[in-house]
């Protein structure tokens, strides 16, 4: 309700209006933390020493400052990972908020053909823009991951549950006792379809969902695909 002629000091000026003198920023729905897994360097590190917290942010502007000034996935060394997770969630399946969950994943085996920087960026924008889920109440998305390996790039989308209830949670929320199994499964399937869409995969390609604990027990992240899209 400001007169357009009289520049009031609290008139909103975005970074698009004046990139060096703006006074409002675009908040994200959640705070996100970027993590990096450093490739092992000869010495026998354990994985916890290699997993590094990089930075936490909660606005669109901050995100681009980070993205524009960090190594693109295509230039990372083999055995590196980026993990972008909601603040307070460690990107490990043992984390209390991940241990009942699982992930959608896809491996790009033709590394040269995969536009990995663009794919990762679009997955990240889906996460921070909150368009992977149909709304905040879905509550399944924990984070997104990219793994750089010798034979492939793998992108993953981690969820809070595998479509089952988690003891001690009430309400129609992820893992809650009032959320039906049908609804829980449909939310996971919807995330899988969205993931596949962001990956720009042809209809014949499949993305697979598996639970973290099943994967850990089988000693392979590819074991026991529970759902496919």
């Amino acid at each position, binding site marked *: 309700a400001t007169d357009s002629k009289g520049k009031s000091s609290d008139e*909103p000026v*975005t*970074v*698009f*209006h004046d*990139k*060096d*003198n*703006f*006074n*409002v*920023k*675009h*908040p*994200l*729905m959640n705070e996100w933390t970027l993590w*990096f897994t*450093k*490739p*092992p*360097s*000869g*010495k026998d*590190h*354990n994985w*916890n*020493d290699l997993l*590094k917290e*990089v*930075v936490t*942010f909660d*606005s*669109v*502007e*901050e*995100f*681009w*400052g*980070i*993205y*524009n*000034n*960090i*190594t693109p996935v295509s230039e*990372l*060394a083999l055995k590196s990972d980026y993990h972008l997770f909601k603040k307070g969630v460690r990107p490990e399946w043992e984390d209390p908020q991940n241990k009942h969950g699982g992930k959608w994943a896809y491996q790009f085996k033709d590394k040269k053909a995969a536009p990995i920087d663009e794919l990762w960026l*679009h997955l990240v*924008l*889906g996460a*921070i*823009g*909150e*368009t992977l889920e149909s*709304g*905040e109440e879905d509550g399944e998305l924990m984070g997104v991951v990219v793994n750089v390996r010798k034979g492939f790039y793998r992108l993953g989308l981690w969820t809070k549950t595998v479509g089952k209830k988690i003891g001690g949670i009430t309400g129609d929320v992820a893992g809650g006792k009032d959320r039906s199994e049908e609804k829980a499964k449909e939310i996971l399937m919807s995330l899988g379809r969205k993931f596949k869409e962001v990956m720009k995969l042809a209809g014949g390609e499949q993305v697979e969902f598996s639970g973290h604990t099943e994967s850990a027990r089988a000693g392979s992240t590819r074991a026991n695909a529970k759902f496919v899209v």
Partner: protein
Amino acid sequence: ETTKTVEPPQPSAQLLSLRSARRLTSLNDISYPAAIASPNPALNTTAPMGKFRYDKNFLVQFQSVFVEKPSEDWSNKIKETLGAGDEPASARTGSAR
């Protein structure tokens, strides 16, 4: 042999703006420049105050606009965190789990 003096990095105008900017509580108050596509309103019909969803087309428009490093010590931080694995391993060995 001379020791180089490292001048304390100064925050850019863009970074200072980011630090003092207030978080938007409504997207309706903003009229974006004509060249900028506004956020898709359909994503925020039921948005609580200040809790927004943003479509990819809106978000990518910031890529060429907000380009400053997020902090004055960013380059060092990135070197330390992402850099080649040549840090002294001794400080970390035997750490308790």
